[in-house]
């Protein structure tokens, strides 16, 4: 099916944002009717490049051709007219509109929409059949699963006549099964001659699904490969410019006594919605307990309750001989004093204060410590020294305590937060998304440090939406779905398929039984 003509061609596309050279003379040609992957670390310039194609930004220089025609978009409307559709990482859907209403949004065609709705219904039914994209048209989008919402986004693109679909990290919010389903849709689209550009940082997806792959690093397009003639190791090396250890070696866990025991927890979030119910587990010393699940299935609220930010509605948590219950709550300060460290999921909003200097961010949660206070006086020299030693321990760059927190890269911000939490010698570590938005070099470093803490006999609870991270770090794995534990397995028995089933709560009862016994 795939013809050899070129769908999209970029020639020497250049884009600056102030000091940042986001795209440095990028060349790319995407063959029509193929699936083309673009990989690169965060900040490599992938999203900028795609935003130029979609008319959000204009290139400083260079040439773009879409189906052999010169193309220069100043708005997304022009891109849509040229046949380019985009599925963003965060869906652009109106939650309380129906699928049909969402699809015609932006192409209503006049003041009265009855007619265009009717036309759209016919057209969508045809598209759905052709590409295997069945979606209930009259249901409100908010009632659809994330995977289904993504289908709506794809349908929206196709309805507007997209010949080229750009998908930005489409599997970030999906279970493995939903991802597989998405990839099947990709195949169907490809067979109908649609060109797909897939932006991702997951090498496995690239290997499984794409025909060609281009690698970006620091704004430059560093390599183009035929997917069948490359391998993940080569791609990873191209992405970061040196060899990396993707699988961290670790010894067998020497698990000791339970340092944290959660019993029958029920937790409501800040808005008063029930997010967790009937959750029990224990975290033992010298062991990493991974909590897996698709984003928004209660892991976040669980983490906040374990660290004293959210109160318990029911149940109890025993930590270091103390019992936390709805009647006897602990606040984050008291928990820190007990030896519980917390690396929050949302680094930018919770873990640091963007406008504070690094030395002040390095103080969050510990500003009452004796070492830095003398009477009423918060000793600036000690604050600075504290930050300097943390920066040295975790190789934070640049090692300038006076630099504003927001001026560090994501990886270095995260290292500073980890240093702050790890260096106080806590007994229980509760870590959320340790490597989200962090470059590969720092990921390796961070994971090694987490394992070092485990080997030092700490109890570690790791919450991550990256299944690969959970599997490579954890000794035991809990899977959460819809606020409940849907599976509990030893890491050595875990594989992506079963975890994926647990994440969707679709495991056979006998297996679930087995999970409970563990």
């Amino acid at each position: 099916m795939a013809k050899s003509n070129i769908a999209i061609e970029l020639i020497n596309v250049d884009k600056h944002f102030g000091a940042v050279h986001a795209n440095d003379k990028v060349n790319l040609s995407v063959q029509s009717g193929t699936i083309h992957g673009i990989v690169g670390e965060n900040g490599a310039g992938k999203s900028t490049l795609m935003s130029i194609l979609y008319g959000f930004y204009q290139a400083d220089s260079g040439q773009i051709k879409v189906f052999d025609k010169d193309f220069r978009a100043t708005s997304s409307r022009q891109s849509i007219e040229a046949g380019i559709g985009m599925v963003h990482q965060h869906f652009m859907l109106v939650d309380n509109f129906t699928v049909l209403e969402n699809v015609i949004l932006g192409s209503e065609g006049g003041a009265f929409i009855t007619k265009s709705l009717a036309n759209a219904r016919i057209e969508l039914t045809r598209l759905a059949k052709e590409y295997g994209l069945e979606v209930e048209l009259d249901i409100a989008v908010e009632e659809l699963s994330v995977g289904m919402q993504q289908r709506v986004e794809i349908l929206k693109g196709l309805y507007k006549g997209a010949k080229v679909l750009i998908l930005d990290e489409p599997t970030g919010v999906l279970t493995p099964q939903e991802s597989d389903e998405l990839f099947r849709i990709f195949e169907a689209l490809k067979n109908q001659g649609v060109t797909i550009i897939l932006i991702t940082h997951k090498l496995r997806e690239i290997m499984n699904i794409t025909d060609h792959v281009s690698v970006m690093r620091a704004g430059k397009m560093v390599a183009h490969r035929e997917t069948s003639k490359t391998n993940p190791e080569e791609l990873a090396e191209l992405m970061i410019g040196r060899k990396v250890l993707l699988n961290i070696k670790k010894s067998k866990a020497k698990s000791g006594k339970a340092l944290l025991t959660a019993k029958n927890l029920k937790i409501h979030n800040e808005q008063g919605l029930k997010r967790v119910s009937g959750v029990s587990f224990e975290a033992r010393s010298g062991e990493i307990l991974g909590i897996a699940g698709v984003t928004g299935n209660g892991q976040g609220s669980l983490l906040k309750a374990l660290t004293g930010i959210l109160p318990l509605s029911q149940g109890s948590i025993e930590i270091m001989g103390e019992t936390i219950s709805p009647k006897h709550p602990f606040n984050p300060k008291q928990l820190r004093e007990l030896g519980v460290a917390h690396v929050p999921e949302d680094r930018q909003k919770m873990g640091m204060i963007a406008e504070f200097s690094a030395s002040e961010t390095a103080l969050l949660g510990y500003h009452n410590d004796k070492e830095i206070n003398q009477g009423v006086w918060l000793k600036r020299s000690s604050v600075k020294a504290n930050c300097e030693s943390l920066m040295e321990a975790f190789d934070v760059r640049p090692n300038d305590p006076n630099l504003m927190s927001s001026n560090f890269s994501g990886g270095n911000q995260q290292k500073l937060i980890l240093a702050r939490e790890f260096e106080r010698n806590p007994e229980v570590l509760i870590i959320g998304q340790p490597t989200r938005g962090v470059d590969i070099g720092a990921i390796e470093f961070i994971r090694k440090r987490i394992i070092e803490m485990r080997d030092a006999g700490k109890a570690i609870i790791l919450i991550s939406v990256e299944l690969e991270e959970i599997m490579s770090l954890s000794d035991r794995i809990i899977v959460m779905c819809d606020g409940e534990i849907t599976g509990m397995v030893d890491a050595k028995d875990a594989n992506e398929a079963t975890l994926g089933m647990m994440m969707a709560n679709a495991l056979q009862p006998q297996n679930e039984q087995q999970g409970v016994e563990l």
Partner: protein
Amino acid sequence: MTRDRRLSWINGLLLPLFNVLTAFLATGIIFLFIGVDPVEATKILIYGALGYDEGLGYTLYYATNFVFTGLAVAVAFHAGLFNIGGEGQAYVGGLGTALVALYINPAMSAWIVIPLAISGGLLFGALWAIIPAYLQAYRGSHIVITTIMFNFLASSLMVYILVNILREVGEMSPESGDFIAASWLPFVHDVFASFGYKIAKSPLNLSILVALFFSAAVWFFLWHTRWGFAIRAAGKSNEAAIYSGIDPKKIIVVTMCISGALAGLVGINELMGVQHRLFLNFNYGYGFGGIAVALMGRNHPVGILIAAFLFGILYQGGAELDFELQNVSRDIVVVMQGLVILFCGGLEYLYKPILVRFLAPVKESE
């Protein structure tokens, strides 16, 4: 100089400077419209405020009030709170000062009476701020709305108290009797005279030292104590504060108490320093002026001292303008104040892009 450093200079010094100059330029244009020569007006204003002892005395006396209310607004601002209630807190704070200065044992030494009277102002100012603070923290009523309402409440309350309680028998005007002499803060010209220097009489009194003391105290508190750290953390990020074990609700209440207490000090300048009695509307305009001062001073005590001095100049110079020029009334000061708020607050970053482009351009290599 690194780029970061240049940026902080732009933010801290050049922006406010350019904003203030723009406000003055706009005032100049208004002068042209009402048929006044702006250069002439500027000369009168500057001479009136700074050109001779008495004028300078008045300028500093007005500035003292603005330091108190400016600090009050700034402290609240660092906790992310916009305290518009300085006017009311100053008013009620004056009542606290007056109660001490009226009813304390007249035989007591000034060394005891003055600190007590100052404490009275601090306490009553804080009390007047604590209710809006509580409502914001625990009931979700917006502090901007409640503090404005509390300004009106303060105004009515003070009229009632002055007319029905503190007014002396047989007096027509709603004001208290004289404070006991031990509570009077010495005038600066008297202090100078006691050392043998003769300067012109003005209302400037030793409360200016209190203002300097509290400026330093606020600076130390905000940037060099753990409580100041907690306030600034809560002001920047609620989530990060909670994460750090800081209770943002408590921060709101504590910060507003401090803010109200600082505003409550206006009374010591006006009442203990100058009038030696409690009277209606002694606080008039200083609470709101404090907002402009804090905005202009970028919520830093040093900036506030400078901005308060500038406002002192405007107040005193404005009075001179009123006196010298036929078609200018004292209200021109309010116009200028409004323009300062407009350019320092509303259009704070007007010049930032252009200043950054010329003075701290991003380099290719970075």
